[in-house]
């Protein structure tokens, strides 16, 4: 059982979950470094767009999707890259070493042959059988039985599946 002191920042654009997760992870991990880059500064580095800045309502003018590996690299937090869902023991071990576990939720689209969409979220807490995730869209925590979340499909927000894990490296 493990519980990280993890705070998820809300994403600064409707497509910036990758940036919100990257920046939140960076802030939560030792060694704490200042100044920590914000989502919009990260978007300016990762996205091809120029002139990214926060507007008056706190949203980033560069609102586009990118991969989590790019986001984590942009905050100097190297990861394993996308690997399959992991066991509870592996997740526990990461959390006990103050490394939140990033995951990709995939929503398959029945009307498309490919075209699955994604949302990046973080596992920040475990018990003997459960995992707690938090997401940057609305700041919602979801608690699942690890076994069903790991093995099942269409569990997350009624329709999403845990497809990939991104383990932060020491």
């Amino acid at each position, binding site marked *: 059982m493990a519980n990280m002191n993890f705070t998820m920042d809300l*994403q600064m654009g*409707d*497509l910036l979950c990758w940036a919100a997760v990257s920046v939140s992870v960076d802030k939560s991990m030792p060694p704490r470094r200042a100044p920590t880059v914000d989502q919009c500064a990260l978007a300016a580095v990762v996205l091809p767009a120029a002139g990214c800045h926060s507007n008056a309502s706190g949203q980033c003018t560069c609102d*586009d*999707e*990118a*991969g*989590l*590996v*790019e986001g984590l690299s942009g905050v100097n937090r190297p990861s394993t890259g*996308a690997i399959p869902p992991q066991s509870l023991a592996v997740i526990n071990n990461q959390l006990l070493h103050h490394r939140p576990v990033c995951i*990709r939720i995939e*929503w*398959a*689209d*029945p*009307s*498309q042959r*490919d*075209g*699955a*969409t*994604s*949302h990046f979220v973080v596992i920040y807490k475990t*018990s003997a059988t*459960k995992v707690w995730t*938090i997401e940057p*869209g*609305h*700041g*919602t*925590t*979801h*608690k*699942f*039985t690890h076994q*069903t979340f790991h093995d*099942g499909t*269409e*569990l*997350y*927000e*009624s*329709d*999403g599946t845990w*497809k*990939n894990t991104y383990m932060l490296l020491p």
Partner: protein
Amino acid sequence: MPLVPLPKIPQEVSAAFQSQWADFSDAEDPVQLPPADSPEYHAQRIFVLSPGELMGAGGLRTARAAGWRFLASGISSQYGIAASVAQRGNGWSLESVSYGPGIDVSLNAIRLLQPDLQALPDVYELRVLKIPSLLTEAFWLLSPANSQLDRVVPYLTRLSGIEPTRKYSEHEFLSLIRPYAKKRLEYANSPRASGDR
């Protein structure tokens, strides 16, 4: 009586919630699930739509039934908590418990909008429509008589141009949300997305 009563909660759904509720009650959670037999719960039938389905000609009526959600205030708490029950194989299973600002918004939306919904001139079945990949949730007022009368009342969204708690016709809602669906599909189908997987 403008709202058609919800379809009766299937006995197996209630039974799954009642029998598995205790497994998801953790004392250290900041919001505590009320007992499964509490009258506080709002039972909601959940439907989901993908971006591709939004772009299709079928509109809202292509939404897929995705189970039930039991929503309430936490014990001694102003905050909301939700338990989701879905069909697995031949049975029903309590699959997740959720809390946080998004759930609070959902609970407040029910409290604020229910009187409004009761005052509508047409007869509707109340459903919850989730478009998870666009981080959007809405009441879907389904007209049993005429799909042209369907209304959508979004209450949880990050998409600019969509006003929470405004009642949209299906056409209005689809016109507003389709550009976002299109953008998500373009990325999902692009080589850039393969780096995530």
